[in-house]
């Protein structure tokens, strides 16, 4: 039955990843590290799978989706904020690491040409690793998360430059400087062009397009993917990375009121495809040949793990950010990137370096990604530790945090469904001074309400989390959708908060009672009472 090789390759990858993650869970291993280990086990160790072009494409699709997700998170105002620091720190670190890396490699006995390649490979940090971890920590939106993402995107641009150069150098014939320059020109022009298109579209085109499809979540999801692919293809055409295209596509959509819902829908797809990406990364890591360079691997890994954050700390604190945010941002940079492999693989195939250098880079990659994943996941603890021992005082940054934490909602009444009933309840409660959170799928229905609104589909767990059921005072559902009402009753019960659910029809009562609903909004009873009194009044008056 057909060619199902891809399916079974994918299956092995996903299944292997699942098993390794479960097996290493008691060690608190970050998922991405477990995925890479799974890739190592499936590829270099056992030889079950080998690197194929299709897998590479699937992995690339995962990256595109991840960056699309990041873009969806960022409004333009937030990006403008961190622009200067992103450029300064991004470029500063590139220069520093390249110089330092070259020095160390040269001292370790590599010839200048090899040292140059090693230096370039060490320079870039992995956008995918960091973004995945920040997303897992729900910190993409935090100030330090935004600075980090900004820096990584600046570096992605530098990567484009580097890749274009290496591609030029590895061409069989002489290096054509003019051609490289023209390629670079196209890339930069393309980048600016895409950015302009994204911004214009988000202002003039997308709002009305998404207005049409707003009522149907699946369609807006598919539409968002269409938009993402459009940018990815355009970026590829212009020699830009898939990441940059997807990121810009995301930014254009982030300005719409539907971005949160889209994020929730794209998220599971990202989880799925990015797992493939990390396993694929592991598949590529031929570690065996690197044994002869164990000392170099150790030194260079430590350089990346300590030197990179250090230079970041210096640059970012100089720009006036607080000690805490500077530190949290700096920690994110302590690993090398998947580009390092691509770069090294290109150089290897062009005969510029030996295979052992590729392995060296792989082992540095594995070590730094693995350790920095822990550093990012436990960044707050690490900061507390460093701060308590006064290790950060030398940077002389202020210990005040510039970002006042948004007070999370509490003691609020959650009202789901802005129909006639929902609006009435919201208005009345607000008039009486209650804190109310209104939820509806349709962003238009949330307009003009006297309270905070949350756009989203409540059958999505992330919406329930965002609404903070556990600290609410009451959950009200005015919806007349049986399935969702039952779900809300269940969730309210789970969070131990009283709920009042619209019992719009007698057939739904039984389930609600079983689910321990505290109060049923009894529209039929209310209507019956009113009609009964009208009936009696009418008969009396006759």
């Amino acid at each position, binding site marked *: 039955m057909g*060619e199902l090789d891809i399916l079974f390759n994918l299956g092995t990858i996903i299944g292997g990843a699942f098993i390794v993650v*479960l097996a290493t869970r008691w060690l608190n291993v970050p998922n991405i590290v477990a995925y890479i280990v799974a890739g190592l086990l499936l590829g270099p160790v056992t030889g079950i799978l080998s690197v194929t072009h299709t897998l590479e494409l*699937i992995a690339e699709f995962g990256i595109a989706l991840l960056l699309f997700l990041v873009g969806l998170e960022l409004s333009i105002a937030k990006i403008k904020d961190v622009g200067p620091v992103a450029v300064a720190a991004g470029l500063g670190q590139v220069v520093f690491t390249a110089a330092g890396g070259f020095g160390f490699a040269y001292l370790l006995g590599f010839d200048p040409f090899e040292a140059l390649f090693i230096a370039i490979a060490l320079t870039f940090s992995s956008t995918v690793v960091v973004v995945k971890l920040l997303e897992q920590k729900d910190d993409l939106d935090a100030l330090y998360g935004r600075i980090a993402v900004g820096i990584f995107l600046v570096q992605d641009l530098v990567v484009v430059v580097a890749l274009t150069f290496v591609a030029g150098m590895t061409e069989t014939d002489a290096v054509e400087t003019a051609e490289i320059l023209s390629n670079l020109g196209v890339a930069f022009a393309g980048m600016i062009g895409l950015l302009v298109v994204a911004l214009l579209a988000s202002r003039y085109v997308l709002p009305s397009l998404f207005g049409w499809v707003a009522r149907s979540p699946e369609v807006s999801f*598919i539409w968002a993917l269409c938009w993402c692919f459009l940018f990815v293809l355009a970026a590829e055409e212009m020699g830009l990375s898939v990441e940059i295209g997807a990121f810009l596509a995301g930014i254009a959509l982030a300005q719409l009121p539907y971005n949160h819902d889209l994020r929730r829908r794209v998220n*599971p797809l990202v*989880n799925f495809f990015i797992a493939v990406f990390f396993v694929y990364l592991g598949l590529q890591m031929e570690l065996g040949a690197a044994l002869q360079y164990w000392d170099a691997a150790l030194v260079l890994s430590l350089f990346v793990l300590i030197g990179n954050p250090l230079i970041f700390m210096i640059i970012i604190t100089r720009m006036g950010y607080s000690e805490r945010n500077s530190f949290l941002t700096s920690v994110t940079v302590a690993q090398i990137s998947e580009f390092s492999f691509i770069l090294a693989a290109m150089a290897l195939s062009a005969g510029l370096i030996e295979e052992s250098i590729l392995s060296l880079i792989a082992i540095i990659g594995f070590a730094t990604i693995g350790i920095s994943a822990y550093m990012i996941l436990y960044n707050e603890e690490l900061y507390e530790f460093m701060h308590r021992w006064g290790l950060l005082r030398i940077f002389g940054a202020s210990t005040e945090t510039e970002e006042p934490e948004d007070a999370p909602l509490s003691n609020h009444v959650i009202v789901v469904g802005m129909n*006639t009933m929902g609006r009435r309840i919201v208005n009345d409660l607000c008039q009486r001074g209650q804190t109310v959170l209104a939820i509806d799928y349709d962003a238009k229905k949330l307009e003009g309400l006297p309270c905070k609104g949350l756009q989203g589909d409540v059958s*999505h767990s992330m919406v329930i989390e965002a609404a903070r059921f556990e600290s609410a005072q009451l959950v009200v559902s005015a919806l007349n959708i049986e399935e969702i009402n039952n779900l809300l009753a269940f969730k309210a019960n789970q969070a131990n908060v009283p709920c009042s659910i619209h019992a719009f029809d007698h057939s739904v009562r039984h389930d609600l009672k079983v689910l321990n609903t505290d109060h049923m909004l009894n529209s039929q009873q209310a*209507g019956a009472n*009113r009609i009964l009194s009208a009936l009696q009044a009418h008969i009396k008056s006759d």
Partner: protein
Amino acid sequence: MVDLLTALAIIFIVAGPFLLIANKFELPTVPLLIVAGLVAGMFIEEELTLELAQYGIALLVFSFGVGIQFDTVRTVLLDSEIATLGQILVVGSLGIGSGLAFGIPLQESIYLGIAAALSSTIVGTALLQKEIRRNLVRGRLAQSIQFVQDLIALVLLLILSAEAFAMDPIATQIGYGLMLLVGAVLVNRYVFDLLGRLAGGSSELMIIGAVSLLVLFMSAAEAIGVSIVVGAFAAGLAVRHDKDRYMGLYNGIESIKDFFIAIFFVTIGALVAVPTVEKVLLASGLVLLTAVAKPIVTTAILIYQGYEARSATLTSLSIDQVSEFALIIAIEALILGFLEQSVFDAIILATAVTMITSSLSQRYDEQIYRALADRGLIVGRHDKIDAWSSCADDVTDHVIIVGYGRQGQQLVETCEAIGQRYIVIENDPVLRDTVRLECKEFVFGDAMEKYTWEKAHPEAARLVISTVPIEPLSRRILNLASGTDTILSADTVDSAFDLLNQGALYVTVTDLLAGEQLVQYVQALIHGDLTPEALRYKQQQLLEKRSDNAVYR
């Protein structure tokens, strides 16, 4: 060579504008995805398309397995609605017959029969959401008809794939398939919760785990020589779980499903070759069967079963399209070499066309019904209304109560208590016995029908009360009972204003009233005038008092 990523990009980029059209004109998305496929097919190779289509099939069947509700199976089987299966037999035979008439061999004509007989859940039920929510007769009917059809489609698919791997006798095949399903149930019972615990509430892990199970079952199916579709369905059963508890997992599966389903329908379109006269003829034959013959047969059967003409017609008009399962069956048959390209193309084209015509027929269903009824093409079964109703012909000074739900029941109680004569109008067959037992006088017919009102004599009535907040019905009541005082129900303030302007005496907006009441309770709770326990007690009292005359057991 177009690689996978570019193929995916093309699929989505082409699909985007078509979806936009679909939404702008409120058409179902599936047919426009198929049309998008016709365009995308020009850029993507057939080999890649077939492969992507396989993923789509696996995901569709998997998510059907995940979403299957065993309770629903039971209710549908208990209901007499199973008799509507007659419709499948009649239309299916017509389909096979017309295939033979076109000179297509019997083996392939069977697929035409399947295409004609089965209707689409995605299109049909999606369009009927409102009716289903309101528990209207036709919403319920269409839903259970489609559910039964999906089950039949699945069985057909299993048989088809068993036939494909005919190295072993069919019995062995089915044995293997059953083994797989039993394995799935065991995994569901004993392994899944364990995985859930191990994953420790991380929905990322649960999704990866569910996909692992899917691939595991599909590989197992392949290993024992059963179709991977069986494996996908088994995996669905293995993953199927309490939605409330595994919400993150369900959300994830939903997204992944949406993604692959879009790909699936586009690839289906991409597989269609250039239409020829023969194909177009065959496709139009199929369209006629599905869009015309099927509703006629269904209406006839439903009327024969005792549903009144309007509900029967409207139900039939919501199942007049080709099912997505028929597409899966056709594509499997094509891959296995059981079906010729031209027949396959005809089925795909007919599917796309009928899904569009069906959304139109559903939008204008009232008008279609009225047009047919006015020309006497649908015989209003007045004899049935007469037989089932009980009311005097010379009734005067009575109150007409439309709808015997909870409000209707209370109105009847009140009328009896104050000695007011009344007539109840109701048309849900489920309520027929209750109405006969509890009401002195009633008309059992559709309140949209003129004849129903002729029997209730609104001109002599004191008051007409409708407890059904459906605007078209309210308008019709104002029209048919003009001159008599009318109390109506509405679900929005705007519609209430409208109805008042058109002459209603009084309109209740039940949702508003309930909302006001809740706000009072909240206020009382916060100020301490009412304890939560007291509120709960009060509510329980009320519910228990009401449960005596509950209609739904």
